[in-house]
């Protein structure tokens, strides 16, 4: 459930949309970041242990930033090939009882909603359910799970960098067909999540980033506003410090906008029925 306290923030963000849409025609020229990411190609593959994918260092152009800023660098890292499944998470709560549905501290998860799609503390449903991505987990729970595996949650930058890839290209973020496909996928998300194996594999070998569930990132609570929000009359210094520094640098990337808007409604204890996670290292 989204918390009310986040709504005004989400509203501030949303107000920027018509502006972004109106300026969508002003497509930026191919950025240096795209070339850098392609130039950084190196062997990519699934590792044996824990089914992780090696991602090469590269860079990408974030949705929010000043136009003209250099692309954001992303160092080499590893990312789980698949989102964490209910079966995976069951093994975790067996070993860590404080993260079971009946025991979790309310500070760390909205108790009424945490793992609410499970039948019980240790009952995820049938075999097919065990293969679905775990959802209705809070950021705190996702972090605890990753830590227990010796991993961590990916950052926004890492996640977005990988998410720019479609099935054949590492940077398809501005390809009209891919954009259209993602908008359709996001609008069709429901509480009935598909099994992980049905996820599409992208050019890096990462599965189901877009077609399964929303995913937590470690720094989901990075601020994001635009100073061109019309209804609040420019820089809203009342809500944000240094808010004038940030604006949507890439208005053509609607799917990224949707992801940022989604994250804007979350707090650390929030759970959502279509929000899961995967770990990085």
């Amino acid at each position, binding site marked *: 459930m989204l918390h009310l306290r986040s709504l005004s923030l989400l509203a501030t963000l949303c*107000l920027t*949309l*018509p502006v972004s849409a109106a300026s969508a025609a002003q497509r930026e020229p191919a950025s240096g970041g795209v070339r850098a990411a392609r130039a950084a190609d190196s062997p990519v593959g699934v590792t044996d242990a824990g089914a992780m994918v090696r991602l090469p260092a590269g860079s990408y152009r974030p949705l929010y930033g000043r136009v003209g800023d250099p692309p954001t660098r992303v160092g080499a890292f590893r990312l789980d090939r698949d989102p964490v499944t209910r079966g995976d998470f069951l093994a975790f709560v067996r070993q860590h009882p404080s993260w079971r549905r009946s025991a979790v501290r309310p500070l760390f998860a909205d108790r009424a909603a945490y793992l609410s799609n499970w039948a019980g503390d240790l009952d995820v449903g049938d075999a097919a359910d065990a293969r679905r991505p775990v959802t209705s987990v809070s*950021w705190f729970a996702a972090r605890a799970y990753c830590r227990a595996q010796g991993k961590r949650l990916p950052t926004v930058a890492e996640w977005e960098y990988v998410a720019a890839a479609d099935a054949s290209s590492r940077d398809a973020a501005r390809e009209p067909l891919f954009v259209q496909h993602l908008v359709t996928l996001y609008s069709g998300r429901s509480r009935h999540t598909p099994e992980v194996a049905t996820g599409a594999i992208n050019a890096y070998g990462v599965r189901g980033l877009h077609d399964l569930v929303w995913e937590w990132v470690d720094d989901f609570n990075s601020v994001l*506003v635009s100073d061109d929000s019309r209804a609040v009359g420019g820089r809203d210094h009342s809500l944000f*410090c240094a808010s004038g520094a940030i604006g949507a640098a890439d208005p053509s990337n609607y799917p990224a906008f949707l992801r940022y808007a989604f994250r804007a409604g979350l*707090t650390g204890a929030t759970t959502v029925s279509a929000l899961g996670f995967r770990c990085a290292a």
Partner: protein
Amino acid sequence: MHRHMKLGIVLLILGTLVICASCVPADAADDTGDSGRDQRAMAAAGPSLYDLPTTWVTQHGDTIGLTSLAGRVQVLAMVYTNCAVTCPIILADLKRIEAAVPVEQRGDVGFVLISLDPDRDTPERLAEWAAQTKLDPARWTLLNGSDDAVRELAATLGVRYQMQPDAEVAHTNQITVLDRTGAIAHQQIGLGEPAGITTNAMLTLLR
């Protein structure tokens, strides 16, 4: 334009209209003196913030857990000392709240500033800044923590922040009032406090 994309945009704009209905009063607040930005008074006895297993270093160099804040009503904000624009306003708000505390109850209220810029806001720097801004060490605690501790506290309070390339930290301006157990009693989001709602929330807890 592709049909699906057009549909998606229409849906987004519709969603914007619905959601933004809630933020109109915030802008109207300037005219009416009513405060749309003073958000909700949360239900009492929520989870304690002090359950966060994080450790911090105070401006005096002491290492503490958040539980050491228990027992007093605490008024919290996340700021950074190099902030030129809004943090002085937050500080002014906090000092106004402080001034409203009845003299005989001054020992029952604490003020906590947590740095969003722990690399530069060392405990020494925090001490220096506390002296410059004349914060009474009997009541004011300034905290330096790891990036991780700051991230977790911010995620719990609903504070959003991001380091900027020019070394500014963009962040939400927010003041939180905690009851004596560390449960969030009230949050003010945005600056200025025309109706004194945050002050009243604190005074209510002192009764």
